[in-house]
């Protein structure tokens, strides 16, 4: 479990990064207006972590403490939440909710998607402006390479796992099969014990 204060620090840093990103994208308060007052709850199941996004007038706030009622609650793994976040920012893309459990108003997510799509979220431009062309070019290249590498590794691992399961399916013993075999062996053992006792009884009665 992540200590609370460390988590607060991470959340504060993430919040500042989002604010800096929005500032770099030159987002005006009018663009955020449709989302003002809305609260989204993200339940990251694989990290056992709840994060609230509270939409303010000039920026969005993150919180890890309960924010009472949320307009919409998304529950899923970090990967599925990231995929949904990406679909929110892609132009003309449908909302992808694969592997997510959604409670509350999907309308809030649609408003969020419209808000994002109305923005010019070019992070590479923002990084170039902040760092200058040379360092930004290196950083962008590194990040792109890392992302490609990660995606390739993920796909490769998935493929290998599937192949392994397919080829080894016949030799793999499932928990149910193991349980059934164990109970059959136990039953046979009992029969042997009973037969053994009967033989001894017969031997005794017939000298």
């Amino acid at each position, binding site marked *: 479990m992540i200590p609370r204060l460390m988590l*607060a620090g991470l*959340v504060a840093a993430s919040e500042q990064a989002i604010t800096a990103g929005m500032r770099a994208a030159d987002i005006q308060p009018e663009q955020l207006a449709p989302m003002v*007052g809305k609260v989204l709850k993200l339940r990251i199941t694989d990290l056992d972590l709840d994060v609230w996004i509270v939409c303010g*007038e000039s920026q969005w706030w993150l*919180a890890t*403490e309960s*924010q*009472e009622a949320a307009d919409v609650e998304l529950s899923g793994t970090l990967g599925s939440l990231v995929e949904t976040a990406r679909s929110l920012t892609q132009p003309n893309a449908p909302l992808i909710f694969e592997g997510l459990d959604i409670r509350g108003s999907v309308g809030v997510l649609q408003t969020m998607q419209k808000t994002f799509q109305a923005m010019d979220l070019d992070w590479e431009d923002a990084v170039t402006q902040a760092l200058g062309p040379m360092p930004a070019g290196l950083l962008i290249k590194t990040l792109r390479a890392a992302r490609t590498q990660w995606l390739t590794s993920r796909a490769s691992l998935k493929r290998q796992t599937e192949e392994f399961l397919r080829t080894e399916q016949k030799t793999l013993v499932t928990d149910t099969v193991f349980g059934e075999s164990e109970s059959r062996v136990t039953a046979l053992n009992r029969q042997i014990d009973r037969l053994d006792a009967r033989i001894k009884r017969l031997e005794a009665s017939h000298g």
Partner: protein
Amino acid sequence: MKETTHFGFKEVPVDEKTYRVREVFNSVAKRYDLMNDLMSAGLHRLWKRVAIESIAIRSGMQILDLASGTGDLARAMSRRAGSEGHVVLADINDQMLRVGRDRCIDHGELKGLSWCQCDAETLPYPDQSFDRVTIGFGLRNVTNKDAALHEMHRVLKPGGRALILEFSTPVSAPLQQIYDVYSFSVLPTMGQLVAQDKESYQYLAESIRKHPNQETLAEMMRQAGFETVSYQNLTGGIVAMHTGVKS
């Protein structure tokens, strides 16, 4: 015989404590934020952040921040309350309020903020005026804490929440020992070096020890009328965050 109360480890007449506390904060006002950063190694910012998160501030809320001092908690809440919201920075000490107001001006944050020099024991606001009432690192300096808690409850709207962020009692004995050495040896020395005021920081350390522990304060809040009272320890109980709801 005159009724007395504690001022750090000393016993002083009740009507003298307010004056003495004011003197302490007059003395430390200008370097208060710097000293907070040095004394807590910046942790007070995270404590305050966690505290603000815990009371779910929404756009348009009316908030009263007692013992507001230099106003860092109030400014953070004001940003979340937005242009429709309003935060009152209240403090008994005019020097602290002045420093707080200067900080707001320096940060260009004046919209939705107002200042009030008042005593937390007798708030100059009608019943049910605020959605949130907070007091950060201030309750231990209040002479009559029960009266202040009743006033916090009175000015809250039904459903409103109160937050008390305050130094408290560490939950483990080894941490308590380290904390004692730090409070009574390092803290006053640091106060002398940075703020040229050893006595004020000696008082701050003593006042923390005289402050009610987590359970006692929670019970005091219940006695004042708060419901769903709960507390969370931060940094092993060095700081505790109490919240209560007015039904």
